[in-house]
């Protein structure tokens, strides 16, 4: 009976299509957890949510897009699109965001599958599917809900492109990277990794140049309209604003550590506005004011445009950093380590933050959409908290980041796994840039969680396979087998076999 069942057409079909099986399994687990959470928990917002939701509501109601210089249009555009298609109830937005969460888990499966093999893909996908921190971020009106799937999708497309040499996939990866940069500007830091990864894998100049040009060209095309809009509106050809961010990092997160105004050095500055700005920044640094507050004050008091203010803030922040470079590097490294370790995300903390943010909400158009927790949601709070506590990467402490370092090392060492190096480099780049420019904000780790899962599990799988191989070799050696060395190389994962799959001819790639 069991044998007949196992040889039935659906089972045989699944045996022939293990990737479909893996994706469906991961999708089902991720969707079940999100379905259980979606209507049990109230809508989460933070202080930053207003600056995205307000413009999004205006856009959805046909009032145009009015974004501050610091914000990029990806997330407000996404929110407006969801509101237009699914309705203005914010629960529709959460539904869409959780849908993207399911997609993230499936993409993580794909990423693991194409880097370290099917078992790693499945485990990483499942871990991402039940990651409570990601579920909480998808339930919050903030960029991470869109940024995480975009980053994972871009890397999956890129890894797939590196493995197959498919030009359309390179173009897709570039477009997705552009969309990620329009959601959170930090994704721009991943662009230099594209040629690096292509060179690592291709090891030849011509195809490397061709593929990189396609990916970077597609990236440029996707961000170009926004850059042109920024030029026309703000006289600034950038995506995002570095000035506010850097001042936030140096004045708020490193409160009192950096000096913007040292009378002995700066009183001689001939530029009066610059001198005044120094004093304002110094005052703000002593009080721990936010970058936004400083930006508003400077604009108002100095009569500058948004872009001019941002440039001024950027220059002064860099100057302050250069005055204490050692401290800045030390602080950045500390934050990088803390961010890598992560912290446990608690349901109660999100709920409390949402209550505070709702009370301080100023935007009239979007205020009505924020409803306080219903009695049913209050009653369901323990269940909701339990659901997001099933698994969080921070439970594993330093294990996952350390294993990820090992995974990165292994992928750099073994040519067949080289595409996985991209995943590791992207993860550590994102963390480092976040630590350097902003600080230890726990949500900045979320995009890295799926990447760490793939790298960490890849390292574990390699260690297990390597150990098994060595044990086997030892046994054979003891049994008197002369040529134990003739055994196949350790860690012969599926990936190595699959790397022999024919590649589409393009730019003379291998």
């Amino acid at each position, binding site marked *: 009976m069991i044998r007949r069942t196992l040889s*039935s057409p659906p089972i045989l079909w699944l045996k022939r299509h293990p990737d479909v099986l893996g994706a469906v399994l991961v999708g089902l687990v991720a969707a*079940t957890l999100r*379905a*259980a959470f*979606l*209507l*049990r928990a109230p809508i989460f917002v933070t202080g930053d949510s207003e600056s995205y939701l307000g413009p999004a509501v205006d856009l959805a*109601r046909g009032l145009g897009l009015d974004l501050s210089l610091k914000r990029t249009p990806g997330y407000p555009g996404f929110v407006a699109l969801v509101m237009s*298609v*699914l*309705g*203005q*109830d914010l*629960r*529709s937005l959460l*539904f869409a965001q959780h849908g993207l969460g399911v997609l993230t888990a499936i993409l993580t499966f794909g990423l693991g599958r194409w880097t370290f093999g099917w078992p790693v893909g499945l485990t990483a996908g499942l871990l991402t599917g039940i990651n409570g921190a990601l579920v909480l971020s998808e339930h919050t009106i903030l960029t991470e809900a869109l940024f995480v799937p975009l980053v994972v999708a871009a890397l999956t497309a890129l890894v797939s492109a590196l493995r197959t*040499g*498919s*030009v*359309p996939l390179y173009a897709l990866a570039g477009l997705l990277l552009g969309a990620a940069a329009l959601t959170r500007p930090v994704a721009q830091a991943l662009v230099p990794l594209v040629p690096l990864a292509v060179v690592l894998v291709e090891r030849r100049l011509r195809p490397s140049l*061709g593929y990189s040009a*396609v990916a970077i060209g597609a990236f440029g095309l996707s961000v170009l309209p926004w850059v042109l809009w920024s030029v026309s509106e703000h006289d600034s050809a950038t995506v995002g604003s570095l000035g506010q961010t850097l001042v936030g990092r140096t004045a708020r997160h490193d409160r009192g550590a950096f000096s913007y105004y040292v009378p002995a050095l700066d009183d001689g500055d001939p530029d009066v506005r610059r001198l005044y700005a120094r004093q304002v920044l110094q005052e703000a640094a002593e009080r721990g004011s936010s970058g936004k507050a400083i930006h508003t004050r400077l604009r108002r008091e100095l009569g500058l445009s948004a872009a001019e203010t941002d440039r001024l803030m950027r220059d002064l922040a860099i100057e302050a950093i250069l005055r204490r470079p050692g401290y800045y590097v030390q602080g950045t490294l500390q934050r990088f380590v803390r961010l890598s370790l992560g912290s446990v995300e608690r349901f109660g903390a999100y709920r409390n933050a949402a209550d505070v943010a709702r009370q301080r909400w100023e935007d009239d158009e979007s205020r009505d*959409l924020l409803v306080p927790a219903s*009695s*049913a949601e209050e*009653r*369901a709070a323990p*269940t909701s908290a339990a659901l997001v506590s099933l698994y969080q990467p921070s439970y594993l402490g330093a294990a996952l980041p350390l294993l990820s370092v090992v995974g990165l090392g292994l992928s750099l060492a073994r040519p067949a796994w080289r595409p996985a190096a991209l995943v590791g480099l992207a993860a550590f780049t994102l963390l480092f840039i976040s630590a350097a420019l902003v600080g230890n904000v726990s949500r900045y780790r979320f995009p890295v969680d799926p990447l760490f899962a793939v790298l960490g599990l890849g390292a574990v799988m390699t260690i297990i396979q390597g150990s098994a191989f060595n044990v086997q070799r030892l046994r054979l050696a003891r049994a008197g087998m002369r040529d134990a060395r003739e055994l196949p190389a350790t860690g012969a994962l599926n990936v190595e076999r699959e790397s022999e799959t024919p590649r*589409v*001819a*393009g*730019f*003379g790639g291998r």
Partner: protein
Amino acid sequence: MTGDTALTSNWQACLRRSWSFLRAHPDACALLAVCLVALSFRLSFSLRVAPFVSKDSQSYFLPAWDLVHGGDFQLGLRRTPGYPAFLALCLMLFGEDLRGITLAQHLLGAGTAALTCLLGRLTFGRLSGIVGGLLVGLSAPLLTYEHYLLTEAVFGFVLTAALVTLAAAWHRSSARLWLLGGLLVGLASLVRPIGQLLLPLGLLAAALVGPRQPRPALARAGLVLAGFAILVVPWTIRNQLAYHLATASTFGRTLIARTAYYDHGFVFYDAERPPEDADPRRAPARRIVQQGADRRESDGGIAQRLRQELDLDPVEVNAIMRDVAIDAIIRQPVHFVEGTLRFALRIFNGVEIRIRDHDNERRDVVWEDRVRMLLVGGPQSEDDFRAASRLLNWYQPARYAPLQLVLFSVGLVAAVLVPAWRAGVLVGLAVVGLIVVSAALDGPQERYRYPADPAIGVLAAGGVVALGRLGGWGWARYGKLPTSATALTPQPPLPREGEGVGG
């Protein structure tokens, strides 16, 4: 190879691969397309409007609520456990928000569209599957009733799944499929008792398909019956133990609703010629029913009076209502048949869906205190309401009812005439049976048509395919093309196991 050429060939290779995948898996692609259309349509609607409730909703919801919250599973005598069990599952999965239930029902609705695509593929071929699936995917009444806390969405899904399985079993004659078909018919009966109607159809199909040999036919019918019994018998035993009533459901109240509330002209009690009843309670019961009919009281009101005035328990009330109604029907059989046909046509025609009517229905509903807080109000914004209303205008089957009736009839006739399409007869009979029995036992409630909508869509699409073939044959016969008598003979959707193409 230059860079440009390489780039072009790479893109071309990608397009070629996509095209060859499409050609290699046309059914999977059709199914995916139907699913995507149905799902997008439902998602655009589902969170714009608060869930709809009718007066009947509470009788399904309360048992589910009590079950989840550790209470008893108290179900009304005429209710079956399938839908309350589904509601309990939804409450456990999504929590107490009613939108979770409607979301799940919309997902089932998308599943129904996919199943319709399969049903069309199995009966009249791929084209009818795609057309039928899209019609179901965009149907306003189906979308609306998926948004209700009522049995229609779940029943429609299970019913279509049962038809798909039986049609697949018809073609492949697989023992597992016959058994699964029986199980699904049993499940449909536990969601709505009228699902039992599929059992004789399933048995008939099992008996008629394949070579005319009694033993295999009996074995197939036995499998269908066994599958049905596995699910229905335990519930029947439970009813026997609880109410001394060995049936899956009761129909006393529904028959009274049919004869006394929806229909006019039935005589339950003639004061000038009072019937001689052995049961002393029968005569006052007739009087009460007659008074109820004269005053246009609902079946619930009549049942309450019977219970209070004659001091009867619910089982006795149901039995006496059933007997009084059957007596009246037996006395006026022509009136009953005429009314049934009239109601059946009304059910088939359906009504145009106006969202405002369904949203307003919520105002007439009063739920018990312990669940009242779950009833949320109307939509949050007028924009959402208008957008939802616009969506419902995409496809209203009631607007095309005469055309649909004609195409349905053509499809049914074609299924009878063309051997390769014969599984369509099973689908057509299921539709006719469901509508006529609903009209005969329940009355002209348009919503009773909606679970049969997928099957109607398939038959109507089959009618289009048949007319197309006929037109092609006529063109070939009398037009410019060379005559070909085989042009009318369609290719079978799937070859039967052990038989050549054409069966």
